[in-house]
């Protein structure tokens, strides 16, 4: 038992669960507080149950579908941020890479009709990977050769990406509503998943996302390429000392991170459910949720599969919270609390360590 608890991985998971628990407790307190000052009918217990069931008590299997739909992109942006973290970089530019990738995918799926429609969506995904990768690579090149902090360059690239897309929407505009884009002609197939969930929400994208997560896990943990990249991330000087080309490592890391976010964008904008581009200047939420997902998943690709699902569950719960008389802002507060608490995960691990060591000692 002691061995199990003191196992490094088990401790990491326990620390994340503790963070989640703290988030839930805090969320419940917020509900109680909100209920005490609101005049209209509210029910904090009801609200809390909604949250811990991820809202599925209202929309059941459909709700599960909605959660999966939202999981797909944040799984990828989470991987993008997490992969960069593992290699010592902070990719805060997931939102820009996401929207660039998504737009590229939509453009290809609308314009490149010379490709048979059955294959067009695959080409669109590849296009998104390339453009997202380039968007990430810019930050990598700047960091490697000019020592520009990747946080700053990728934040700015978020806005550049957002404005670029908003200005390019006219190239694929809808005939009846020129400020919006057309619906893609070729989309990710559903393989009958839409029937399972009773709604046209889930498609093959979720499987692509999970497969990519496993792939990234293998690259990071099992290959010499991953060994090099992590060495660069943990200690750039030591990597250089060992003859690893650290500049190449940084550029490749950012490129791969960008490609992951770009793919995430594609999986939203050519998904089975219609989401179209418009000219509004808003940074996509998926990009920033990726940071939460990566932190909660401790940057581990397999952990990110679960954390992305969890964050999506909360998001679904948020849309049902109004039934108990609450705003979905409660969810945002909870998510933030969880992230905040997981930043303390080292502390929790330390405490768990001490607690169990003491018990055994007595």
């Amino acid at each position, binding site marked *: 038992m002691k061995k199990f608890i003191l196992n490094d991985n088990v401790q990491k998971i326990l620390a994340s669960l503790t963070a989640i628990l703290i988030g839930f407790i805090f969320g419940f307190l917020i509900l109680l507080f909100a209920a005490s000052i609101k005049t209209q009918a509210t029910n904090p217990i009801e609200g809390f149950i909604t949250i811990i069931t991820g809202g599925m008590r209202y929309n059941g299997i459909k709700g599960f579908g909605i959660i999966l739909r939202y999981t797909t992109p944040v799984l990828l942006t989470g991987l993008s941020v997490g992969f960069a973290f593992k290699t010592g970089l902070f990719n805060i530019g997931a939102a820009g890479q996401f929207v660039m990738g998504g737009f590229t995918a939509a453009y290809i799926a609308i314009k490149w009709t010379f490709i048979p429609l059955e294959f067009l969506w695959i080409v669109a995904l590849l296009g998104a990977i390339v453009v997202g990768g380039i968007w990430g690579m810019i930050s990598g090149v700047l960091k490697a050769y000019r020592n520009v902090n990747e946080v700053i360059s990728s934040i700015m690239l978020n806005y550049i990406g957002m404005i670029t897309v908003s200005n390019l929407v006219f190239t694929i505009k809808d005939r009846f509503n020129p400020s919006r884009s057309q619906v893609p002609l070729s989309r990710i197939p559903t393989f009958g998943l839409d029937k399972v969930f009773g709604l046209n929400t889930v498609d093959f994208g979720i499987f692509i996302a999970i497969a990519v997560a496993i792939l990234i896990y293998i690259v990071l943990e*099992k*290959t*010499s*390429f991953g*060994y*090099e990249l*992590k*060495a660069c991330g*943990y*200690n750039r*000087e*030591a*990597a*250089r*000392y*060992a*003859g*690893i080309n650290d500049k190449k490592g940084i550029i490749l890391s950012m490129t791969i991170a960008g490609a992951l976010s770009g793919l995430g964008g594609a999986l939203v904008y050519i998904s089975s459910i219609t989401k179209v581009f418009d000219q509004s200047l808003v940074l996509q939420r998926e990009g920033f949720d990726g940071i939460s997902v990566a932190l909660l998943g401790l940057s581990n690709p397999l952990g990110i599969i679960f954390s992305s699902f969890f964050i999506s569950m909360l998001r679904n719960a948020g849309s049902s919270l109004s039934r108990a008389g609450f705003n979905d802002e409660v969810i945002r507060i909870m998510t933030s609390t969880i992230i905040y608490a997981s930043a303390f995960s080292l502390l929790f691990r*330390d405490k768990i*360590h*001490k607690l169990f060591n003491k018990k055994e000692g007595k």
Partner: protein
Amino acid sequence: MEYVIEMQGITKIFPGIIANDNVDLKVKKGEIHALLGENGAGKSTLMSVLFGLYKPEKGKIIINGEEASIKNPNDANRYGIGMVHQHFKLVHNFTVLENVILGVESVRHGRLLMDEARKKVIELSQKYSLFIEPDALISDISVGMQQRVEILKMLYRENDLLIFDEPTAVLTPQEIDELMKIMKDLVAEGKTIIFITHKLNEIKAVADRVTILRKGKYIDTVDVSMSSKETLSELMVGRKVLLEVEKTMAQPKEVVLEVKHLIVKSKNHNKNKVNDVSFKLHRGEILCIAGIEGNGQTDLVYALTGLEKVSSGQIIYKGEDITHRSIRYRNLKGMAHIPEDRHKHGLVLDYNVAENLILQDYHTNKFQTKGFLKFKKIYDNADELIERYDIRSGSGARSIARSMSGGNQQKAIVARELETHPDVLIAVQPTRGLDVGAIEYIHRILIEQRDKGKAILLVSLELSEVMSVSDRILVIYEGELVGQADPALVSQQELGLYMSGSKREVLE
């Protein structure tokens, strides 16, 4: 009351390690009390407890017969305890005077009373013959002078108990002699000194009594005059140690590395970091570059290993010009490098031992096929090296490098570098911060490698190491080679003159 300071049963636990286990320390008034122990023996921890930086789990501190509660350095200061840290705590663009009064400025109506402070500083400087120039900027004065500023800071605060944490590590032999004299003067004036060190010579030179710690435990307190260096080192390490390095005469063979007029320019100022350095390194010899820290050794090594670009000059290795070759190329051609800073270059601290042991050859077929790492091989390799080089750690091959002691980290680096079977081994301060046992071990390995016909370039700041291990000495001063010596013929004092730039000869 006989003792000024009594620490009783101090226990300080860090996660996973007991740094101090029921340690006692009793210091008499007016003595120089040395605190001796290997690295990780808990000396610094114990002093940090006394100075209020750590809170112990158990134990009490008695000062002048009364139990004291020291929660932070300000409390310590109130009890008259001052400390010279290993890394000085000085503001570099402040003057000496400004540094001394920082934190205890006398102020009237919000205005600094510099004149009073200046008077006091000058008086103190004269009284203890510190020869301090109060208006010099810290960045302009030598390391030895900076240390005196630290001493002056304690005196200005009227501290009676002065703690010196490894004060000689950064000094030249002459400066060390002067420091020893200052320490004696201080004691003569009624101060009490606790002197942390692992150098036995210095303890013999100045200390009255010595308390020995080993692995966090209190071993003994003895009179220095009553004990030999051999007994002290035995108490410290827990077994008999060879203080002298045993070696036969070197038999140098052909030249394997030749450096011609090497220049490394500085990015910040006009002075070259390495200026026109030429030398030849033969197989079967240990060539030592001696010098005081910061005189271009680091940059010379970086240039040789490829970590830094060479501005002009040539590096010829086994007949091939490798001046502009990559680091990987040099590694593969048989150049190994034990780096100066094991945390910066030597190890990826978040990798475990096994992963660190393959840092130089993870890309060879030995440890990977088609891009996939062969974990079984990697861990077998680690188990073998751990066994052969006696690398000790909490959980063997899977322990994270960060959790290991400095000596064992160094052993891991040495193991890794030697396993590449190099022709040239560049070892930069390979024994820095290690205890007597580990130093002995590393010296033995260096000589063993020499006898196998490898060429060894040793860069060291430690004069005793320079004298005992090397076969030939080159002295570097401000980026230039200023002297050449035979360790059998030269004295430490003479080397010291070269190292401080007071003497130089033209090398061929």
